[in-house]
């Protein structure tokens, strides 16, 4: 961007920067549309959410500049430090925090609230990058192993997983913020990039599919018999050796375990989570006025947008509050209703473009730390994108997570800004490392 090595923009990827600014600006316009009412028409009115968002955007700009000002080595050096501090903060918030909407996950600072769980994202990504970039640590690349090698080979993978699981458990169990917690699962993609066998991912994916099938199919016995038949017929195609026999039996038992465990897991979910799964899968009698209301109204808002949308500020569904949480988690409804299929596609493509750009940037890093961190950022952003859009169009259960750079909220905007700009700084620094 700037040719002067001393400029803070030196080496900064301008494409990333432009897409970031575009997304934040479009988000702000849509927040204005979502909470628009005739009495408060001034977009700078700070008593309204769009006015506040402008303050958050200003803060984000300051944060971005600050990150770019600080030496890149700072982030590498203090990775574990950030992680430790934020783990502690996330525990403390349960005791010292202020209760908002039933969960104790906010620190009250003056009139504003800060959610430490949001900032856990960048800290966890940094810490994992730091751990995995250690020269001696290799993510196990093997899938089929003898038992005695398992612990030795997978030790580091397990430790990496612990980096993910620790915040996940704290945020889920102590703060009861499912949405914020589940995001960390996305970092498994980073482990895959760093060598984790694809077998695990496929196995995990199959288990997830089986879980869904087991929820939809009511005849569990029939399902297990079907699985047994599939397992038996597998021998028609593979070599009949003892090892294969054991392998097939193990896979079958695991699958049966998933199927049998499904109802157990489902029954131990919280009521609203059960309902969200029911709504998604169309199980039972979903009352569109109660549990199905959110998703149905979201779909109505988006679906009524048509190809070109109803026009800016013309959306009847979002403007008149039919869609709950339409400025935060359901901000995409405003886009869908007022900008139609065209606008929705533009927003989704911009987000996807940013993510793919990050993967491209990550791959050009010479430092393992930067690459791993870059993948972490991409994975977290994509997870947010996929869950957030997916829930508004009824393809994912309702999990309360924001649309990156778009949704209203200071904590989420700032956390995404920090997450992104640390990588932008690392990327800008990549040439300097050589010297």
């Amino acid at each position: 961007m700037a040719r002067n090595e001393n400029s803070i923009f030196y080496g900064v990827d301008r494409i990333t920067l432009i897409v970031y600014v575009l997304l934040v600006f479009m988000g702000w316009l849509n927040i204005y549309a979502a909470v628009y009412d005739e009495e408060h028409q001034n977009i700078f009115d700070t008593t309204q959410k769009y006015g506040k968002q402008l303050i958050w955007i200003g803060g984000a700009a300051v944060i971005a500049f600050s990150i770019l000002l600080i030496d890149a080595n700072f982030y590498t050096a203090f990775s574990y430090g950030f992680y430790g501090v934020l783990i502690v903060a996330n525990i403390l918030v349960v005791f010292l925090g202020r209760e908002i909407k039933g969960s104790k996950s906010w620190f009250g600072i003056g009139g504003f609230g800060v959610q430490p769980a949001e900032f856990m994202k960048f800290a966890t990504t940094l810490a994992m990058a730091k751990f995995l970039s250690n020269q001696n640590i290799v993510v196990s690349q093997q899938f089929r192993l003898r038992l005695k090698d398992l612990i030795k080979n997978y030790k580091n993978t397990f430790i990496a997983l612990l980096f993910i699981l620790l915040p996940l458990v704290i945020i889920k169990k102590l703060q009861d913020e499912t949405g914020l917690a589940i995001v960390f699962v996305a970092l498994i993609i980073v482990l895959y990039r760093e060598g984790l066998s694809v077998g695990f991912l496929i196995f995990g994916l199959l288990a997830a599919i089986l879980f869904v099938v087991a929820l939809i199919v009511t005849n569990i016995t029939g399902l297990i018999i079907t699985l047994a038949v599939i397992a038996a017929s597998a021998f028609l195609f593979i070599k009949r050796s003892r090892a294969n026999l054991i392998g097939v039996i193990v896979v079958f038992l695991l699958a049966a375990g998933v199927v049998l465990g499904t109802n157990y897991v489902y029954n131990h979910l919280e009521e609203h989570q059960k309902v969200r799964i029911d709504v998604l899968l169309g199980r039972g009698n979903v009352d569109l006025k109660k549990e199905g209301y959110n998703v149905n109204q979201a779909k109505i808002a988006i679906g009524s947008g048509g190809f070109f949308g109803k026009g800016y500020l013309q959306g009847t569904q979002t403007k008149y509050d039919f869609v709950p949480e339409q400025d935060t988690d359901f901000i995409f409804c405003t886009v869908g209703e007022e900008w139609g299929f065209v606008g929705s596609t533009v927003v989704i493509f911009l987000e996807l473009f940013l993510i793919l750009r990050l993967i491209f940037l990550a791959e050009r890093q010479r430092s393992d730390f930067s690459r791993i961190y870059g993948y972490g950022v991409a994975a977290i952003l994509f997870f947010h994108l996929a869950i957030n859009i997916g829930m508004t169009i009824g393809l994912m259960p309702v999990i309360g997570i924001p649309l990156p750079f778009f949704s209203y909220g200071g904590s989420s905007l700032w956390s995404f800004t920090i997450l992104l700009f640390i990588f932008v700084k690392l990327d800008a620094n990549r040439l300097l490392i050589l010297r």
Partner: protein
Amino acid sequence: MSINSQQLSNRKLIIGGFFCLIIIIYLCRLFYIQVIDIQYKLDAEKNAFRYMTEYPVRGYIYDRKGKLLVFNAPSYDLMVIPRETKGCDTMGVCEVLQITKQDYLKRMKKACQAPNSPRKESIFEKQMSAQTYAALQEKLYRFKGFFVQKRTVRKYPRPIAAHLLGYVGEVSKEQAEKDPYYKEGDYIGITGLERSYEDALRGKKGTQIAITDVHNKVIGRYMDGKYDTLAIAGKPLYCSIDRDLQEYGEKLLVNKKGAIVAIEPSTGEILCLISGPAYDPNLLVGGKERSKNFTKLYYDSLNRPLFNRALTAMYPPGSIFKLIDALIAQQDGLINRSTVYPCAMGYPPMGGKPKCHAHGGGKNLPGSVAASCNSYYAYVFREIVDQRKYPNFIDGYNHWRDMVKTFGPGTRLGTDLPYDKPGNVPSVEYYNKVFGKNGWRSNTIVSLGIGQAELTLVPLQMANVVASIANRGYYYTPHSVKGVGIDKHLDKKFKEKHYVGVQDPTAYLNVIDGMQGALEPGGTAFTNRLKDIVVCGKTGTAQNPHGDDHAVFLAFAPRDNPKIAIACIVENAGFGNTWSAPIVTLMIEKYLKGKTDRPETEKRMLEGDLITKNNLKELAKTKRPVKN
């Protein structure tokens, strides 16, 4: 089995490809719900739009001279949206409407249940009185969720023509389901002109589209009213009724059961259509009052005031039917002006049955009409049925029946008023059933010739018969409207001449001479002769199984270029000349001169009470078994 860094780097493609795949699935889904599936657009409209109906003004109804028969008065319905009643002064509402808390809750429950909805407005109190409305208006701001919808109800400047005009009432559930124009609670014409001309009178409802928020609060108008439609007022209806004649006729028929129908022969326009006893049409408007009054009228089984006798009461026509026999027989060449048949206080071939009265010897054709000789028409009827032209009397009878039907009896005339009855001209099949095949001859049914037996006509048909004679051979379908709307459009079926079976001018001349003779010395209605107008009439005294004979009279006047053809029947009144002929001739005077010159006759008719006596008889009849 180690993987080198290049292979690991290639995983970027898998990861990127996976991301793209998910996004493509999402875009397909978005395309489906945004572009292909229209259900969401419909749901969105249901969500945010409230369609508010603007009710049009129902068309006024005028008489043939432009005098007002029906107009509208404002009425106020109290509407409620149950969801919005939080914080409403419930007791205040009860107090103003003078209902109990239980009533309130009951109505509120009804407003919440299907097909109503707590989110939508429904009627809480129908057609409030002006006082209630005034009291309510002051406090309305405290009654959250309630609002007043202005509608109109019918008003009648004079309490006349209730049967003809019909009434307006709430649309039934079935109708509302069948016709998308109507919603439950809408008004619709139920009988009379209000029903026949509903489409023209009702106008077109307008719609205002309001935008509501999630709390169903009205935020504003959608697109500043760009898609709103204005209510279009109903078209005015120009009746062929003469208001003064109608009113006068109703007065004459007070305390009598019966009907008067007058037609302008040259157009087929109905000048008056009266059914007695009548009722004040103003009784059947308004909310609570209306249903109370309706119940009262409906259950008055002695007088049956809601029963429109002019269109639906099927009476034996009696002697007036002789006119048709005379016309048919002349057309067939069986009799002429000088044909004379003997009369011996009855029909000689059958031992003096049917009986006749003393009218001084055998009459020629006009004389037989004027004196109404039963014997003469027994002969004539049998001549027609047994005439040689036909191989057997069945064909002869069918010929007679076909000819009769061309005058209107036996079929619905197709007038513009709903629910008219066809009357009855018995068929061959009917008699075969009653008497057995070959079990009957012309003499078996000879009383048909004098308008008795199974023969029945509704009063409108009687008027149509006399209009056809006045026109010397044709009629226009009787109709009660001159035109609809400002351009006075009239259905072309009412402009079409219907020719009756008899077209021989001499036949008409002879019969009309006889009808004129009826009001001259020796005629049956001589006492009702008018000094200055030549009236051609025919009396009838219809025997019936219900009690005393019905008095029938029909007439047209003046003889040349007739302006009015009129039929009157008064139930259980006896001889046609005593009650019906005076009424008819008074009506003719009133219509042609605007006044009457016979105060005594008028007084006798206005004050005559035939109902009380007959009703007492009727009551006694039904009570007797109880006393035993």
